[in-house]
């Protein structure tokens, strides 16, 4: 029998070991990513409980968190795979935060938003009767951030809606422009036009726009909206440039098509002069 080279043998062993380790790691990662919502003991137990213990699960199921696979343990900590120790502090269980701790609780993920909130009048009133994240966004049934959250019903809980109505009006105009530009970019992208620069530009503008969501200073909102409007105008101008190029191409196309048709007619007339076909 042929003797195998020891170096090759050890390399083969190393390769097999590496492959097995890789398979185990992939299998583990696969399990841990799917454990987000499925096979979650928090949901299994609380979902079956009546009243206030079961209600959070029902509320969470209709939330933006559930839609994005963010489960109980992502906020409250604990071990969603071990029923016996799911709510053990040793496994990082945090439980329900106190009211003044809510912004920091949510801000572990929403870092930028926490900063905007703390800088606002709402944030400055934290612990003095001011609103926290859940006042407007809801707890468990967390709704997607949108201008709809600025409404008379919510705002009037603490103060009049007059100032917020102005803010909402200014921001609604900006938002509709952002949506229109977004749709324009998507339409040009489907035509093979390189929209990368536009997409990045709109992403940056949208981020600055979102940072205004927690501002209650009308003057600042108006000033920032004007700046964002100028940025949007630049993007809009680029889209109009694309549109002009498309129109120009269609015009050239019309001449090209007419030229080809004219040639067909000329060749046909010439052929007729030769009589038989």
């Amino acid at each position, binding site marked *: 029998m042929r003797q195998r080279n020891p170096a090759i043998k050890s390399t083969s062993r190393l390769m097999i070991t590496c492959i097995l380790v890789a398979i185990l790691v992939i299998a583990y990662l696969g399990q841990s990513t799917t454990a987000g919502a499925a096979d979650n003991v928090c949901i299994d137990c609380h979902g079956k409980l009546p009243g206030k213990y079961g209600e959070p699960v029902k509320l969470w199921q209709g939330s933006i968190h559930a839609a994005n696979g963010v489960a109980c343990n992502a906020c409250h900590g604990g071990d969603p795979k071990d029923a016996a120790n799911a709510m053990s502090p040793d496994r990082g269980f945090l439980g329900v935060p106190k009211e003044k701790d809510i912004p920091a609780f949510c801000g572990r993920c929403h870092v930028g938003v926490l900063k905007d909130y703390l800088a606002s009048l709402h944030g400055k009133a934290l612990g003095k009767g001011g609103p926290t994240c859940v006042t407007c966004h809801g707890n468990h049934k967390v709704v997607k951030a949108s201008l709809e959250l600025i409404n008379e019903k919510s705002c009037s809980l603490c103060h009049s809606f007059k100032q917020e109505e102005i803010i909402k009006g200014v921001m609604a105009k900006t938002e509709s422009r952002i949506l229109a530009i977004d749709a324009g970019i998507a339409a040009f992208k*489907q035509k093979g036009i390189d929209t990368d620069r536009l997409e990045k530009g709109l992403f940056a503008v949208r981020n600055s726009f979102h940072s205004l969501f927690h501002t209650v200073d009308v003057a600042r909102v108006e000033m920032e909206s004007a700046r964002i409007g100028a940025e949007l105008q630049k993007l809009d101008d680029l889209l109009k440039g694309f549109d002009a190029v498309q129109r120009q*191409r*269609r015009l050239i*196309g019309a001449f090209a098509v007419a030229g080809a048709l004219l040639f067909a007619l000329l*060749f046909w007339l*010439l*052929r007729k002069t030769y009589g038989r*076909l």
Partner: protein
Amino acid sequence: MGLFKRLTDWIDFRIGVRRIVAKELTGYLLPANINAWYSMGSILLFIFAMQVMTGCLLLIYYVPDADKAFKSVTVIMNDVPFGWLIRMCHAVGSNMMVLVLLFHMLSVLFMGSYKRPRELNWLSGFILFNLVMATSLTGYLLPWSQLSFWATTVATNSVSSIPVIGQYLVEFLRGGKLVGPPTLGRFYALHVAVIPIAIASLVGAHLFLLKRTGVSTPPFGLKESANQWQGDDYRYEDHPGGIPFFPNYALQDAVSVALYLTFFLTVVFFDPYLFFTRESFIAADPFQTPAHIKPEWYFLANYQTLKIFSNEFIGLSVQGMAMTCLALLPFIDRGRERHPLKRPLFMTAAIGGILLWVGLSIWGHYS
């Protein structure tokens, strides 16, 4: 004028150009009842030349590397002067080539021009048809978009249903277990070199066979439309008293090519996106499967056939049998009659086949 005559005389006295023109162009007579359907071949030659020309221009900027291919196509579409036009002409042209090829085949079928002694013309044309489909399939992957990637994954995967060798064939086609950079390398080589050379060679063979057998007489407007060849000896079908190829039929070819160009340019300038989906302009992502990936319109019937049968191998076998029947048609249909209205069995089978193909394609599109 004097200079031109002196120049042509100079060339003619050396290589006899006028005799070639007299024999091959003005003296080359075609059937007196020839029709416009006979110019489909000229349109196809024009399209092939356009595809080669636009393909060569695309090669200047295209980078056949999985990491750079999509970006290079984006550069062609956005930064290269007239790059968008060249790419659109190439992409739309590939679809038009299949469409005109189908019309060419249908005209040959309905006029019975495939019948003996033209079996080899039909066979070479049939192989050309398959090569055009192959070049379209391989070219589809090159932009390395989501559509390219996943359509190629689906197309190559269907081969895996062949017993015993299926999996090996898939790996051979892909250059690995999955569609990836080696697949792009293979498809690129096939698309820009192997298949175009094969097509050009077969076009030469097809034209040589046409030259040796002579142009078939259309079966329309004749008292006797049956095939007169007895099969006892070589015969060149000449057409005494017919019309000259040049200028008469060459002008008909020019009319057909110009009409084709009108249609082609309308699509290129006004709706080239007819042949593109949203996924055509998104870079390939092996980890994100798009919801509905459909093949090009000319593969929809094949795609739907594979879906109808619970076993993909049966689907492939059915298609293989249909294609074999089509390839061997001149040896199966040995009747002498060529007029379609005097061939009821053929007409029923042909129209049934076309309706089935159209029906399966529509079903495939909406399924």
